[in-house]
């Protein structure tokens, strides 16, 4: 909203607030922390004002007004909690429950259901309705999504997502009035790379992900802000975790990156990320055999290798590693004499979202391609080929080298493997340092547009696994090269000091929404 556009004053529940022209009552209320209940309104979609849940009392208006579409007029006095407003809200909730099966105890959305929340809030524990309920049943819409028609409140959020954002209007309201329900044209299931967003926008348990059906209860999940590692887009997400596992991810709104959406591939990738047997303890090779050890021993061994060597150090890193770990990998190599480093990126088909074109499932199925590049690593289709003939130190960060030949590393002076998973090639390393996934330690990724975005720690790392920015910086500090970075913030701020592209940024400044590297910003500025 342009700052010079006229400003209107409105009073919401006694609190004065100024809003730009065009703002709705609902938006104005949010500015003063008043959250008006709503079902059909979704900030990422058009507002049809059909649920009638958001009605508020406005002085001088003969009827309660729908706050989701009613624009603020100067001097308006709004009451969201007056007797009239509360009665209107109670009415909407009661109506929605008339034909609702009230199967909350077995509903997948229980605990995150807006209907349940408001029914509770309006104190409607007893129903005045004794009539038989309409029974519409359930239907499978996509290979993973089930529709429970009886729970549907016909808010049309799912319809509008497919129409306005996916721009493939396959979901429609069929029939009319109390016979209405949501369906597609045929019995055939539809598939769309962003289909799971309809489950997210559904304010009740009418659309559910079959994978998630009857598994954990929503209220059992801890929520942690994170970044999807599924591709170089860097969608902002909330990880839902329980018993130290990621069970699901939901998009976290960021208008610069993913709006309110994320793709289905990302959801899968997030849940599967880091699956398999993990390396839980550091290991060092002693008389030809790998032996588990503790961190002081392992880091001491690492320090001993970090001296300038004529053949220098090369690195194979991962575009799934954080900026901070990549930075430390680079510093370790620098200490020996950096002779170049590479990483590989898996690719897959792209998929766009026409209603929010900034968001694409990118071909590069890794979150930090740009970060790795900015830190001096080069993308390579064949990372093994890129280090062929190297005789010095090899630092491998989070690439399990599963395609390496059996005799991998015979020529190397020293092979340091920092990773999460064991592999035949990793077993040939001299030092193995267990590291963390994006979910197990905080850090940041730089997305395809050069936007640096932070993720928080959602899980405890297994065993002794620790992020390289902590372990590596400890070893380096012991050699007088920099400080021990006990936080990703410290590591990132040090990185900013050394890599000009990140100039002007700081971990604190990134906040939860991220910020763009200078170069990205300037090229963006040229475009506009």
């Amino acid at each position: 909203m342009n700052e010079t556009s006229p400003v209107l004053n409105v009073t919401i529940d006694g609190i004065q607030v100024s809003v730009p022209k065009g703002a709705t009552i609902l938006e104005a209320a949010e500015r003063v922390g008043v959250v008006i209940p709503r079902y059909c309104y979704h900030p990422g979609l058009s507002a049809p004002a059909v649920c009638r849940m958001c009605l508020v009392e406005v002085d001088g208006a003969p009827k309660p007004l729908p706050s989701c579409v009613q624009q603020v007029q100067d001097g308006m006095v709004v009451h969201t909690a007056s007797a009239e407003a509360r009665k209107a809200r109670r009415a909407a909730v009661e109506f929605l429950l008339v034909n609702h099966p009230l199967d909350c105890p077995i509903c997948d959305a229980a605990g995150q259901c807006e209907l349940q929340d408001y029914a509770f809030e309006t104190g409607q524990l007893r129903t005045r309705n004794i009539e038989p309920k309409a029974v519409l049943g359930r239907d499978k819409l996509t290979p993973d999504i089930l529709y429970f028609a009886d729970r549907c409140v016909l808010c049309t959020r799912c319809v509008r997502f497919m129409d306005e954002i996916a721009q493939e209007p396959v979901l429609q309201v069929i029939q009319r009035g109390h016979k209405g329900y949501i369906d597609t044209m045929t019995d055939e299931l539809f598939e769309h790379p962003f289909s799971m967003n309809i489950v997210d926008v559904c304010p009740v348990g009418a659309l559910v992900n079959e994978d998630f059906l009857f598994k954990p209860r929503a209220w059992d999940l801890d929520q942690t802000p994170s970044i999807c590692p599924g591709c170089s887009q860097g969608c902002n997400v909330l990880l839902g975790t329980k018993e130290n596992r990621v069970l699901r991810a939901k998009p976290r709104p960021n208008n610069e990156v993913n709006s309110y959406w994320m793709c289905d591939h990302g959801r899968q990738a997030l849940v599967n990320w880091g699956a398999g047997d993990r390396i839980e303890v550091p290991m060092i090779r002693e008389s030809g055999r790998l032996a588990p050890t503790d961190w002081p021993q392992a880091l001491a061994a690492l320090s001993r290798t970090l001296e300038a060597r004529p053949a220098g150090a090369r690195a194979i890193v991962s575009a799934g590693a954080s900026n901070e770990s990549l930075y430390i990998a680079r510093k370790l190599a620098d200490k020996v004499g950096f002779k170049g480093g590479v990483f590989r990126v898996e690719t897959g088909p792209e998929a766009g979202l026409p209603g929010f074109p900034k968001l694409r499932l990118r071909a590069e199925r890794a979150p930090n391609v740009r970060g790795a590049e900015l830190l001096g690593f080069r993308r390579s289709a064949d990372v093994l080929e890129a280090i062929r003939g190297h005789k010095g130190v090899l630092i491998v960060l989070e690439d399990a080298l599963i395609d390496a030949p059996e005799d991998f590393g015979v020529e190397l002076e020293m092979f340091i493997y920092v990773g999460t998973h064991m592999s035949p090639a990793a077993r040939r390393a001299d030092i193995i340092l267990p590291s963390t996934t994006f979910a197990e330690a905080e850090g940041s990724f730089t997305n395809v547009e050069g936007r640096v975005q932070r993720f928080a720690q959602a899980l405890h790392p297994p065993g002794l696994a620790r992020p390289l920015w902590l372990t590596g910086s400890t070893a380096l500090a012991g050699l007088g090269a920099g400080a021990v970075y006990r936080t990703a913030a410290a590591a990132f701020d040090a990185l900013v000091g050394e890599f000009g592209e990140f100039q002007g940024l700081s971990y604190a400044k990134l906040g939860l929404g991220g910020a763009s590297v200078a170069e990205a910003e300037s090229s963006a500025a040229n475009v506009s």
Partner: protein
Amino acid sequence: MAYPHAHPREARVLSKHFGEKDAIPIDGWIERGGYKALDKALAASPDDITQIVKDSGLRGRGGAGFPTGLKWSFMPKDGGKPNYLACNADESEPGTFKDREIMRWTPHQLIEGCIISSYAIRAKHAYIYIRGEFVDVVRILNQAVVEAYERGYLGKNIKGSGYDLDLTVHLGAGAYIAGEETGLLNSLEGRRAEPRIKPPFPAQRGAFGMPTTVNNVETLAAVPHIVLNGADWYRQWGTSKSPGTKLFSCCGHLQRPGNYEVPLDFNLRDLVFDLCGGPPKGRQLLALIPGGSSVPIMTADEIDCDVSYEGIEAAGSMLGSGGLIAMDDSTCMVRAVRRMVEFYAHESCGQCTNCREGTSWLAKILRRIERGQGREEDLPLLLDIGANMAGKTICPLSDSAAVPVVSAIQKFGREFEAHIQDGRCTAVN
């Protein structure tokens, strides 16, 4: 062939030629003075026409009674975008069948009204949205439209005036809510006939996003008479707030049901008892709905009022569409109300929670009471549901659905109570 039950006390302006088969074809219509008003209109400016209609005090006959000239004056004059006229011929309000008769007997009256009104609002295309069930009527209307094209009353350069107008007859497909003006616009655009949020109003953004005036058939049919004879002539009938004549569709328990056109200061009781002959012999009038099922029910004692908008309102109901439904003492009020509510449940577009759920809930409760399974607490519950449905939705269908329930319980509460207590109907049979 005389139109059934024409009555000397009527003031037949629009219905003058009802029943005359010869008035249907264009020649017969012209012989009866048809299309004279158009000549006069085309010689004047659009704003002059709007002014005459404003001065006449003509109010919309579709139900809301909005002043027609004023509505026209909201239409942009700059011609930056095409303006449209949409004639609302969806007539589906239970008890109402006047537009049907206008189109069936005097299609050219409507067409002439559409042309003059389009001219006044600077429209180049007019649509007549006619309900799909009017199969025989639409054939007559279509024939008349083709004749009007052939005679140069439609098309390019109408009668050498330089004014171009196309008129398209558009058939609905079964939805009462397509009669609500924004539902009509959506339906005309090939969408579900779901009413739109207002603002924007149709004059700002109507059909195809363009400025549009929506008028009822009877409203438009009155326009040629007003233009030809002047505002004062029209004001010889009715009251200052409700000038002119109006068609009343009268049905239910009456000796002579049918359409009657009376001045708007005509007495309602006279309309029922004198013109319509009152209820069948041996029966007493129990209740009357004066303006289609969406207006409050009146008791037989309440009908000593004139039929003007303000007169009926003062007597506790509304003029609405002029669809008069008479119920005699054989009527089961619970059943009658249930039937009307079922109509709204069937016709609710279903967008708004209160309307979608409220209409079907009301119907279920009423069916239960009718079956003899009513409870004491049902009446206050019905009233409260009604209150929760009123004034809270996108369009007034929700309010309309509550009206018969609330007004019947208020005025005929005894019948509901008897039903609940005795478990059956106690109406005279």
